[in-house]
């Protein structure tokens, strides 16, 4: 961490310089400039926490930073140093155990990290040095090294692509492990670089490292013999990111620009910090309360002791003299040691065993997630995976769900559904025949049988074939002789066939966006096949099986602001054509209006069906027009300053006055049961936010498809588009929009019922909020501090009042930012992130609970997640059933533990008033130690593992039950107070009940008397039975294990007491309990008082159980009755009632 922050700091320093200059291949260059080799960090990745040397001190330090561990350490030390009523072993042993186990666990994890680091750092990489290829360890790569990467290897650092084995100077890359996009992306070499990299003499000037994956600005100066240096601009298309994988290209050479911890990947990943659950926070809070109780008890006792001793004859009566040492001790020191002794005597109120039990519960409990066969996915042959068991109960507390879209909500599997040409609908029949029928009877405009004019139709299909950045994928063997093979292969296929042959599917295409592939494949169905791009010539096989050739002049790339892309091609006949496809909203204003209406209906219908729609338009460019555009484009591309803005201006200028051809509809298929899952989650009172790196339209349609947005949902949009609408400064507009939305969604809206299912009743307006990455960064980093806070607040308030929020075009770090913002907002709600790609890692790490989907996109998300499930649909059971149950279990566990130790120690405290405040323990040392370890630990552990206060099926069916435990409902202070009072009540009953009995200690029928150990044993017996039976009363789900453990512990207690008192223990100094227990049982009075006190203690509890029922919510009662009846009537094996 330090290292990273140091790097950041240094980076900050460097940033003032603004640029870094890199000498390719470390060559000095002809121009005489002072050559100062700049210092860059090496390519080593450090993610481990400890080294062999600092492990012990650092780990111990970290462990004792935990309030509980530190407390136990102090107690232990006090016991060692001061003469205390109990032996140091009682607290030392458990502490040692806990510390050792934790240290071993953490050491093992760090060892794994070391191993992983080593694997990355020591992997060999080919580096070109002085004209020779040498192998180097990855960690030794320096900035400026020329690195060679072969196919299917990952890039060891951020590289500028200099050379590719492909003829056209491109290479394909998949960034699945970076941003989650599994498709192949095309990257370009810097133009005009000689084939021989040895003789290359160039420098690269580029910006300092920054985490944005999609931004890179740089410039390369190429020095050729005595010529003016040529300047080439560098953009993100030239940058190969560490972590991405080279695909479909034999090898590339690149120069390292960012290395090690400065790579964009490293900057994008945050440290995996220790996550703590709300329950743990509650435990700590309760712990503090009990610590206060403990200290005040000790203080009270110490004070009273000295008050009491002031009376003559009390401190040192003749029968009980002090030793010389005691007499000599300084009064204040004695007071202090007395205080410490009391602390030690009462320290059992905060037991080490609670931490052990909680850990055990979490560890063992998490197995039920991995064992759940409902989480098993036959496709990948895997079930759920639990990476951390610390957060089980947090699954029951989730308020906000942040979900990735691609691969999580959707399958990331595009399919061409239909298209519309000139208002005539074309539907692929094979795909969905039933829908077809529906369509026929549907719209009046729908003229399925009629066709648009053949010319238009073909133009449309050509547009689909040309307007994209798709590559035809060659298999590796064919790589050398791409062209012909490709054609051959396609030639051999029955192109007219509507149903595609499997081999052809496999051959496939490579594109930066899966819907482009879908479109190209769609065009193929209608007879136009894209054959490939070869040295700027695009080949199309048309319906007549003729190959058409088009020269690709320019690609006007897609960007989220324009939301369209265009290509400019020149056909054989010499016509220059511009084809453009894009979102309806960005196309319609740029085409002739008379064509719009016919298409608009289709587009809107498709959009509400959840399809991704694109409109296609074209334009003839005259010679002058083209020349003008060409010049503009070239100029803008070379600009180093404001390149994007300039390009945009030219694009906008070119893409005007087009003719609308038609529209397409592509479906991104949702995950199984995505809509049901979302509904259930929302029904459980959770707010679902979709955070995606994808385009807004796509994301929006997915939101519609999975029911997050409804037809009636009013969308509040805060995107670059809406921000630029007014043509004013973005920030002003932002302010305006935020206030407007705030008024709409927050002020005018009726107060939302807390935790209720989403207000679907009519009359109430649903709002959906959409924001994109750039707008978010304006919101978050506004120029002035006050504004920024205001915007943040407005933004959050709006979002909280919306049923669903969609954040699109998010960089990984921005996703984390959003999560962080929500996490830290008022009430600090519990957040959950779910995603499958590496781009979700940062948000998975940031959220309270991170869930990884075991999708197709690598294992990054799974590895960084806290829980991993195969499919989105499993989230429902994970949260509604497992999470709910875990929460209830552990909440009860915590409350019960505090309770049982309070009523354990309270009699001990009260006894001090009767023993001259002398720290005399009421219970025998064995009982003191065993109480938490043996007598009362197992029943609560069994409870916390097996309790199902409501059975799983019912929990799944009634999502709203989830909101009943929301906001840490079972660990609220009221309830804590109730348990504490119960503990106090029990403690008082135990102690004073026996106290009154001992008014006459002659309790046996032979007149013999009981002493102080009998007193303690009677109290202890009542205590153990009451505490165990109290748990039995709370148990709603008695499996045989519960029976075994509850009755077993009681039996064990009795057995142990007999055993412990039945022998003169050879190595024991005292035989205090010798036959105490047996004698106690021989006394009828003792029996009677034990029974009486147990009953009296449990009476209020039973009473409350009876009285509570009618007061509960009526619906709840009814539902429970239902449940009971149904389970009684048809004893399914899920919640059967044993007879």
């Amino acid at each position: 961490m330090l290292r990273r922050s140091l790097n950041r700091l240094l980076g900050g320093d460097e940033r003032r310089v603004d640029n870094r200059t890199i000498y390719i291949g470390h060559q000095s260059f002809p121009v005489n400039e002072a050559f100062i080799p700049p210092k860059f960090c090496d390519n080593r990745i450090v993610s481990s926490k400890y080294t062999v040397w600092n492990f012990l001190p650092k780990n111990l330090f970290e462990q004792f930073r935990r309030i509980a561990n530190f407390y136990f350490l102090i107690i232990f030390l006090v016991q060692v140093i001061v003469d205390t009523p109990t032996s140091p072993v009682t607290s030392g042993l458990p502490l040692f155990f806990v510390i050792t186990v934790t240290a071993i666990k953490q050491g093992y994890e760090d060892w794994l990290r070391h191993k992983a680091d080593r694997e990355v750092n020591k992997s060999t990489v080919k580096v070109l040095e002085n004209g020779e290829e040498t192998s180097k360890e990855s960690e030794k790569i320096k900035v400026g090294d020329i690195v060679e990467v072969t196919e299917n290897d990952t890039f060891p650092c951020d590289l500028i692509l200099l050379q590719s084995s492909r003829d056209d100077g491109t290479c394909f890359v998949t960034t699945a492990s970076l941003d989650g996009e599994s498709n192949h992306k095309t990257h370009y070499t810097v133009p005009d670089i000689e084939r021989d990299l040895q003789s290359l003499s160039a420098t690269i000037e580029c910006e300092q490292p920054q985490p944005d994956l999609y931004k890179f600005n740089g410039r390369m100066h190429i020095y050729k013999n005595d010529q003016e240096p040529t300047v080439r601009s560098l953009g993100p298309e030239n940058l190969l990111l560490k972590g991405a994988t080279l695909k479909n290209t034999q090898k590339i050479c690149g120069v390292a620009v960012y290395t090690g911890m400065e790579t964009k990947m490293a900057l994008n990943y945050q440290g995996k910090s220790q996550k703590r659950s709300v329950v743990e926070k509650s435990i700590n809070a309760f712990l503090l309360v009990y610590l206060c109780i403990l200290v005040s008890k000790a203080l009270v006792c110490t004070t009273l002791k000295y008050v009491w001793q002031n009376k003559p004859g009390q401190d040192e009566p003749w029968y009980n003299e002090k030793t010389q040492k005691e007499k000599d001790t300084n009064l204040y020191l004695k007071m202090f040691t007395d205080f410490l002794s009391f602390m030690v005597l009462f320290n059992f109120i905060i037991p080490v065993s609670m931490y052990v039990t909680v850990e055990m519960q979490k560890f063992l409990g998490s197995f039920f997630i991995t064992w759940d066969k409902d989480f098993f996915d036959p496709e990948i042959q895997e079930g759920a995976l639990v990476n951390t068991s610390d957060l089980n109960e947090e699954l029951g507390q989730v308020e906000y769900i942040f979900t990735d879209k691609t691969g999580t909500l959707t399958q990331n599997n595009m399919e061409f559904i239909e298209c519309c040409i000139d208002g005539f609908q074309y539907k692929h029949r094979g795909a969905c025949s039933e829908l077809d029928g529906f369509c026929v009877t549907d719209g009046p405009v729908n003229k399925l049988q009629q066709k648009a004019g053949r010319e238009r139709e073909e133009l449309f299909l050509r547009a689909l074939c040309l307007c994209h950045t798709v590559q035809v994928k060659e298999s590796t063997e064919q790589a050398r002789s791409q062209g012909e093979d490709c054609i051959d292969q396609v030639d051999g296929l029955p192109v007219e066939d509507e149903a595609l042959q499997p081999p052809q599917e496999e051959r496939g295409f490579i594109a930066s966006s899966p819907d482009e592939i879908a479109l190209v494949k769609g065009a193929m169905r209608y007879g136009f096949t894209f054959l490939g791009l070869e040295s700027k010539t695009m080949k199309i096989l048309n319906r007549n099986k003729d190959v058409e050739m088009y020269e690709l002049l320019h690609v006007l790339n897609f960007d989220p602001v324009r939301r369209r892309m265009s290509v400019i091609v020149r056909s054989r006949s010499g016509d220059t054509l511009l084809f453009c496809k894009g979102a309806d909203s960005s196309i319609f204003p740029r085409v002739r209006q008379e064509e719009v209406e016919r298409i608009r209906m289709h587009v809107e219908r498709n959009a509400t069906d959840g399809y991704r729609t694109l409109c296609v338009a074209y334009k003839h460019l005259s010679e002058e027009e083209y020349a003008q555009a060409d010049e503009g484009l070239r100029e803008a591309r070379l600009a180093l300053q404001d390149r994007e803005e300039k390009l945009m201006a030219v694009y906008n200028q070119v893409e005007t006055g087009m003719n609308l051809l038609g529209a397409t509809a592509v479906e991104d298929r949702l995950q199984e049961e995505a809509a049901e899952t979302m509904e259930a989650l929302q029904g459980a009172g959770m707010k679902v936010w979709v955070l995606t790196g994808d385009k807004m339209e796509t994301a929006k349609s997915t939101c519609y498809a999975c029911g997050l947005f409804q037809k009636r949902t009013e969308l509040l949009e805060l995107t670059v588009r809406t921000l630029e609408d007014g043509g004013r400064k973005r920030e002003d507009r932002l302010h305006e929009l935020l206030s407007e939305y705030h008024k709409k969604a927050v002020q005018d809206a009726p107060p939302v019922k807390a935790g209720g299912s989403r207000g679907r009743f009519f009359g109430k307006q649903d709002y959906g909020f959409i924001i994109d990455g750039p707008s978010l960064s304006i919101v978050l980093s506004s120029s002035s501090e006050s504004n920024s806070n205001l915007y943040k607040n407005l933004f959050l308030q709006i979002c909280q009042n919306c049923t669903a929020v969609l954040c699109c075009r998010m960089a990984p770090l921005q996703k984390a930012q959003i999560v962080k913002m929500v996490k830290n907002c008022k009430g600090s709600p519990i957040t959950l992130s779910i995603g499958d790609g590496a781009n979700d890692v940062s948000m998975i790490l940031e959220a309270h609970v991170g869930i990884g989907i075991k999708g197709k996109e690598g294992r990054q998300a799974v590895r960084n997640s806290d829980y991993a499930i195969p499919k989105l649909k499993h989230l429902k059971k994970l949260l509604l059933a497992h999470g709910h149950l875990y929460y209830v279990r552990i909440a009860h566990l915590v409350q019960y533990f505090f309770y049982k130790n309070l009523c354990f120690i309270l009699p001990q405290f009260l006894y001090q008033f009767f023993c001259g405040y002398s720290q005399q323990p009421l219970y025998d040392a064995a009982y003191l130690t065993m109480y938490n370890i043996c007598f009362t630990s197992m029943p609560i552990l069994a409870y916390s593992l097996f309790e199902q206060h409501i059975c799983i099926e019912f929990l799944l069916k009634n999502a709203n039950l989830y909101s009943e435990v929301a906001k840490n409902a079972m660990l609220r202070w009221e309830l804590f107070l109730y348990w504490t009072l119960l503990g106090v009540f029990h403690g008082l009953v135990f102690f004073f009940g026996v106290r009154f009995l001992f008014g006459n200690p002659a309790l046996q029928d032979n007149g013999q008397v009981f002493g102080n150990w009998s007193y303690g044993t009677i109290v202890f017996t009542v205590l153990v039975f009451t505490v165990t039976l109290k748990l039995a009363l709370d148990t709603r789900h008695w499996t045989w294990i519960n029976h075994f453990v509850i009755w077993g512990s009681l039996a064990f207690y009795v057995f142990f007491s007999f055993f412990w008192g039945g022998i003169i223990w050879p190595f024991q100094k005292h035989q205090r309990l010798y036959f105490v227990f047996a004698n106690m049982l021989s006394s009828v009075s003792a029996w009677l008082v034990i029974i009486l006190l147990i009953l009296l203690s449990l009476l209020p509890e039973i009473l409350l159980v009876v009285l509570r029922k009618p007061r509960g919510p009526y619906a709840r009662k009814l539902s429970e009755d239902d449940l009971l009846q149904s389970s009684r009537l048809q004893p399914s094996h899920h919640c059967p009632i044993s007879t």
Partner: protein
Amino acid sequence: MMASSYKDEDGHISVSGTGAGAGSLPSKKPENTAFKQQRLPAWQPVLTAGTVLPAFFIIGLIFIPIGIGLYVTSNNIKEFEIDYTGLDPSSPCFNCSQNFSWNSTKPCTCSIPFYLEQPYESNVFMYYGLSNFYQNHRRYVKSRDDSQLNGNEESLRKPSKECEPYARHDNRPIAPCGAIANSMFNDTLELFYSDPNGTKTQIPLTATGIAWWTDKHVKFRNPGGNNDNLTAAFQGTTKPINWRRPAYELDSDPENNGFINEDFIVWMRTAALPTFRKLYRIIQRRNTMVPTLPRGNYTLEVVYNYPVRSFDGRKRMIFSTISWMGGKNPFLGIAYITVGSVCFLLGVILLFIHHKYDNRNNNPDISSN
């Protein structure tokens, strides 16, 4: 930390925490067992008014008679108490209490006459009671050496440190060591019955059977095993400072001498509360025809050895008969009656509420909510 982010994509390394055990068999389908699927057959009790109400009545019905029984039993137990501390100048023991000195060789005696209004029919148990005597003080409770008392020779010579400052005296180990033993109650109480015709007869007091059987026979043992010569066994040790006689001279009966002297054992069982009683003697019933202690005048002869004035203590002598529940203690009876009645009352109230609620429940107007 970042570790996992940098691993190769295949990810065969899984940095997983505690839950890793399950990750080891990733491709295996979870077993469909009731236990693993959390579907163990279970009894699901629901406490409702219907199930609890009868319980309340039953508890009430059981507890009240027990309580009455206990109360009556306790009331039937006869108890007679004499405070012989001698703080009051009019008290016969006033002189003894005032002139107490550890060094006096002549024991101070006082006799207290009293009149028993009721005859004591069965065995009478004679207790001594002390007040404001903190036998449960920590320093006091631990000041003993159980292994010495168990007859361990080594501990006899080297008493445990716990016994300080009563471990050694005059460079010789104290036997029995410790504060408890040192402060053993050493008043001698004798009881005389004054016949109506004036003769004073001593009532025989049994000194055995007052300690727990296990204590006397197992926990406490004289050093030297079965050696009859106790004096020899205690050779080299010294008596506790405050004792007038060494341990081997506590009683003439060898079965009740030394560490297994029952008075000593009783004293060594530290009391729970600062006001306590300990069994001193038992007056056995000799003759079924004659009450153990007939009504009449008695005299309690006290050899006043035990000082309590220094710590504001009190000394009492108590006669008590014993029932199956032990000594006189009205608490249990009252508690049982109270709890029983409360249960019964709650039962009635709950029945009332339940009845009313049921009516409401059946009311169709409510269910439309």
